[in-house]
């Protein structure tokens, strides 16, 4: 591996042997995005290996589901991925609805999609913002968080909470849109869209920033599929797959949106910059989706009639949704009682963690931070 003309292997063979050191990055480290630990073996600044050590944020959420019942588990799904809690809500609601065969009112589907897409924007804003911060630019982070605050305000009006929404219910949503939500939402989207360009000009197309991202941690499409990368990480490697479009659910088939795919616009296909730009483009696509939804939303009820004692028939169900971190799978086995027999959540961050060991070989320590940020790892989602 050659870095800046500095060939580690050659130096070692010629007798300038250097001792490897083991660095312990995390669980408490400023940029591991939660409590995530890496055991780094490094030769000076160049890593020979970075092994992720997960499990510091394990809260056995799947086991809790077996104790609190179908309705009561909904607030816990917020905690699966607290950066993008709406898609988790939706995943749990959808798997229960699939188990019991419940039809969701159309207005509720629209509410769900609006909430999810707003949440996707806010999650991607965190992703691109922390990317800037991990590379040393603090201002883009605060600008991204400022916009996220606006979205949080909107979602707070919608469901009363800013982070752990608990907005959706089995069979619909808990609250209808507030009376002036559509105007406020549209006004916000109008205000927000030009700011994406400003953000790009400030940081995305900055030469130093690009140099830090381009050609770092290149993952080919085949590798990405083999390692089961999902969502923006997968699309960043040029694989055109989006659950919203390819395994349609909810009202996504009726909406017009593009699926941004990385195409190696600056350097190699599948590098950190591609994954980063896919997220920026997805923010723009989400704006489009929200605009359509807010304009088309039909009247009607937002909650189907569901018994308080929810007992789905014996069986199992698996649903896939496109969370902010990609394909999220919810699996639930019912034994016909009030409590689920088994729940399993399949999350994107966990599989993305597995590829870090492979892509980090030969990178520098500073690059590990870039790689972690480019995968948009969220520690609670890894461990659940």
């Amino acid at each position, binding site marked *: 591996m050659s870095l800046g003309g500095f060939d580690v292997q050659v130096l070692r063979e010629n007798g300038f042997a250097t001792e490897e050191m083991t660095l312990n990055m995390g669980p408490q*480290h400023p*940029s591991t995005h939660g409590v995530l630990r890496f055991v780094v073996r490094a030769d000076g*600044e160049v890593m020979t290996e970075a092994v992720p050590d997960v499990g510091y944020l394990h809260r056995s959420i799947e086991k809790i589901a077996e104790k609190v019942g179908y309705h009561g588990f909904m607030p816990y799904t917020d905690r699966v991925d607290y950066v993008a809690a709406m898609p988790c809500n939706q995943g749990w609601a959808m798997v229960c609805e699939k188990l019991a065969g419940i039809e969701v009112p159309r207005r509720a589907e629209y509410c769900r999609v609006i909430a999810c897409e707003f949440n996707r924007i806010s999650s991607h804003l965190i992703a691109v913002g922390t990317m800037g911060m991990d590379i*040393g630019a603090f201002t883009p982070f605060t600008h991204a968080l400022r916009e996220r605050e606006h979205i949080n305000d909107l979602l707070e009006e919608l469901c009363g909470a800013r982070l752990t929404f608990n907005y959706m219910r089995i069979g619909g949503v808990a609250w209808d849109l507030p009376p002036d939500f559509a105007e406020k939402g549209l006004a916000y989207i109008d205000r927000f869209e*030009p700011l994406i360009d400003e953000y790009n000009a400030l*940081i995305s197309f900055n030469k*130093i920033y690009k*140099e*830090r991202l381009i050609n770092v941690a290149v993952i080919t499409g085949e590798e990405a599929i083999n390692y089961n990368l999902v969502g923006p990480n997968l699309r960043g490697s040029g694989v055109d797959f989006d659950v919203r479009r390819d395994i349609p659910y909810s009202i996504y088939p009726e909406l017009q949106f593009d699926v941004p795919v990385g195409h190696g616009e600056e350097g190699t296909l599948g590098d950190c910059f591609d994954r980063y730009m896919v997220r920026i483009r997805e923010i723009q696509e989400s704006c489009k989706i929200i605009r359509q939804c807010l304009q088309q939303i039909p009247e009607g009820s937002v909650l189907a009639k569901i018994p308080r004692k929810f007992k789905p028939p014996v069986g199992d169900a698996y649903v896939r949704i496109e969370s902010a971190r990609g394909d999220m799978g919810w699996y639930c086995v019912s034994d016909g009682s009030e409590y689920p027999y088994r729940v399993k959540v399949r999350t994107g961050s966990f599989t993305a963690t597995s590829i870090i060991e492979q892509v980090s070989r030969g990178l*520098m320590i500073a690059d590990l931070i870039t790689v972690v940020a480019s995968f948009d790892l969220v520690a609670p989602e890894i461990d659940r």
Partner: protein
Amino acid sequence: MKDLVLSLIAEGGALAGVPFSLAAPLVMVAFGALVVFGFVLPIAGITSWLERRVWARIQSRIGPNRVGPQGFLQWLADGLKNLLKEDIIPSAADKWLFSLAPYLVVVGFIATFAAVPFTSSLIIADLNIGILYITAVTGIVVVGVLMAGWSSNNKWSLLGGIRSAAQIVSYEIPAGLSVFPIVLLTGTLSMQGIIRAQGWAPWDWFFFYNPFTFAAFFVFFVAALAEGNRTPFDIPEAESELVAGFCTEYSGMRYLLFFLEEWGNLYVIGAIVTTLFLGGWQVPAFTDNPMLLAVAQFGTFFLKAYFFVFVAMWVRATLPRVRVDQLMTVCWKYMVPIAIVNMLGTAAWMLFVPETLGRLVQFGMTGLGAVVVVVFFRRVRFHLRRANLKPSDYYYSPII
């Protein structure tokens, strides 16, 4: 300084009757102490407060606004807090080196003030090797940083210390090479001598002297930022990579001393840049009153120097951080060659360009500078318009 001492020991002066050999060191020490405690430490503190406020405004925040009017006394509160905190020395650390390191860092930075001018007569020591002296004593800082990194017995600190050593040593070269064109032009290394060779008007500054000194200014400023561990070259403390770099294990006052150096050093950078390229304390001779002139000179110099402190804050709020290998690439593949070209170019300029043409180029360069400023503000207006702001989103006052 000598004039001042002579006037003091003259008949009727405050030190009348004291021999010159005793009076000169006394006055210099007294003035040095005054500069350190009355100027350097407050300026470092105030810079820390101002940096936080400037950052905050750029980031749509407010910044410290509680202690004193507009939070102005925040730096005193922070200093007191850090003084009162426990000074932890890790048990595995090398105690002597660990305790010594921050002092070396601070000494290296305060010693530079010996040759930093304030007005045409106020300077602790107008050394005839002034600029060389400053370049030399800032080298002590790297010893302190390396010591801190090594003695902490922490791998993050070690990485930070080694990064810092590599960085400061490398960037001394383009910084030194960028001073050469000025030294060639003036034929002196004395800070006051360099300022005297310039005029008060922008076209008399070396900044606009010719394209080579223009480029040398940028090379010098960037290299100085790198030597001062400022973004985009703050990799030694790189908080997102190395936790806190070489000061990871420090706490309390020792920790503060590193930051005292960082913020105080900003003023030194500004002062050197002002001296070398921006005409220093030069003001038009508008009055005969020496006191009034001195105040005008001090104000001019301070404002120019502090403008670059502001620019450093602003750059820090804008740019991300480079990687270690890119840092070296920037230094050796870009800045050193450019600096050498500047040096040779200026030498050739002195040989071949006639005075009248040189004069025209000076005016042309000044005009170019004005055009850049105009383009800049047009871009600012463009961004404000694109952001689609409501009238209530504008807020011009610095007071919140």
